[in-house]
């Protein structure tokens, strides 16, 4: 087999009400985008547990993308604010673990923004492709 270029694996956690619906819209609108980010649907971005990110990275993901409703639009009022606070604190911890900034990303994407799903996944896939695989920190 010829040598293949590195293809990053991104785990995407999308909230049911906004970002997941947006990715559906991207599909029905036939917007082509990189196939590197299989989506796990969660009911709310507030369901995202920092352990999910750690576990994904430990088990071989090269990046994690979290998608939720814009501030003020959460179906459960406060879930996305909780997600944002967890994310900001998690990023500080991840940087101390030596995890590059581009690998873990939070995006607010509403149900009507299918093109934004396309743009974010394409952009993140490109960034991680140049960054290379996440080498688990075990030695």
């Amino acid at each position, binding site marked *: 087999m010829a040598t293949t270029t590195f293809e990053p694996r991104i785990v995407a956690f999308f909230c049911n009400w906004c970002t997941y619906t947006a990715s559906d819209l991207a599909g029905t609108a036939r917007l082509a985008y990189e196939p590197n980010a299989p989506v796990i649907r969660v009911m709310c971005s507030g369901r995202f547990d920092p352990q999910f990110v750690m576990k994904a990275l430990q088990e071989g993901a090269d990046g994690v993308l979290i998608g939720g409703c814009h501030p003020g639009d959460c179906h459960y009022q406060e879930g996305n604010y909780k997600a944002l606070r967890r994310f*900001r604190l998690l990023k500080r911890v991840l940087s101390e673990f*030596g995890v590059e900034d581009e690998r873990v990303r939070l995006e607010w994407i509403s149900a009507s923004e299918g093109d934004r799903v396309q743009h974010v996944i394409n952009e993140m896939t490109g960034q991680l492709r140049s960054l290379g695989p996440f080498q688990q920190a075990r030695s």
Partner: protein
Amino acid sequence: MAQKPKVAFYWCASCGGCDEAVVDLEEDILKVVDAVDIVLWPVAMDFKKHDIEAMDDGSIAVAFINGAVRMSEQEEWVHLLRKKAQLVVAFGACAHLGGIPGLANLNTKQEVFDTCYRDVPSMDNKAAAVPCVESKVDGHDLHLPQFWDTVKSLAQVIDVDYYLPGCAPPPDLIWSAINAILTGQLPPKGAVLSPNKACCDDCPRKDTKPDKIEISEIKRPATHMADPELCFMAQGFVCMGPATRGGCGNPCIKGHMPCRGCFGPMDDVFDQGAKFLSAFASILAPKDEAGIDALLDQIPDPIGTFYRFSLPTSLLHRRKMGTPV
């Protein structure tokens, strides 16, 4: 006379506090000595490695090993004890989770050596000598153990039967663990020998916790005076209680200090630090990025705070090698 069961105590990278905890059994230690034959206890008695090597495999009933594993010599010892002992108990936070020495996983061996043997103000080392595995001193060959980049918990090196949590484990848990072993009333293999409930569950300040906590200022024991009755979290202190296993008897809270997390996570939690981070972030007051970041700036050392005892057993184990500090 029937032979008494043989027991070994060993220490790896530890402070000696876990051995002290055994002595803290007070008069009960005499009952232990009556019931068992201590074949190894470097901190208190004189035994050599070849004494243990000469024993039959499986002839030690139980080996209590404290401390994290960070050097080749410790690795050799724990493999030897695993072979000679029927049961191995990881004794204390360092053997269980990696512990305080495990915070060295934020650095490399080189960085640790540079700090310890070169940079600390108290160091006078003009020859720039650092420990080497092989060296010549006055014509003699000197061998020292290899020091690793990464500190490990005991279970990351050998098979462990039980875990006694705590920094150090409290005497009542030690006593009930020894009793359970002597009477054969043991829980399933791999169990942590302390109840699977949060530290908050037994907290003497539990009733003062409001239904909803909102933190707008993060306080530290070093810089703020805490109310002696109120829930620490409700006051804005980082208290690891919600993400920490209980059973410790809450000595820290009773001593007017927030929980530091030494008992490790409850069952089904993969990563104590991430779990605590999740709980703590969710009760912060600000909703916008700038406000959140300003509040988070009040935690000077997030990883050292949330992973104070559990960095080696966290999902990512260590700072990625080769990344600048």
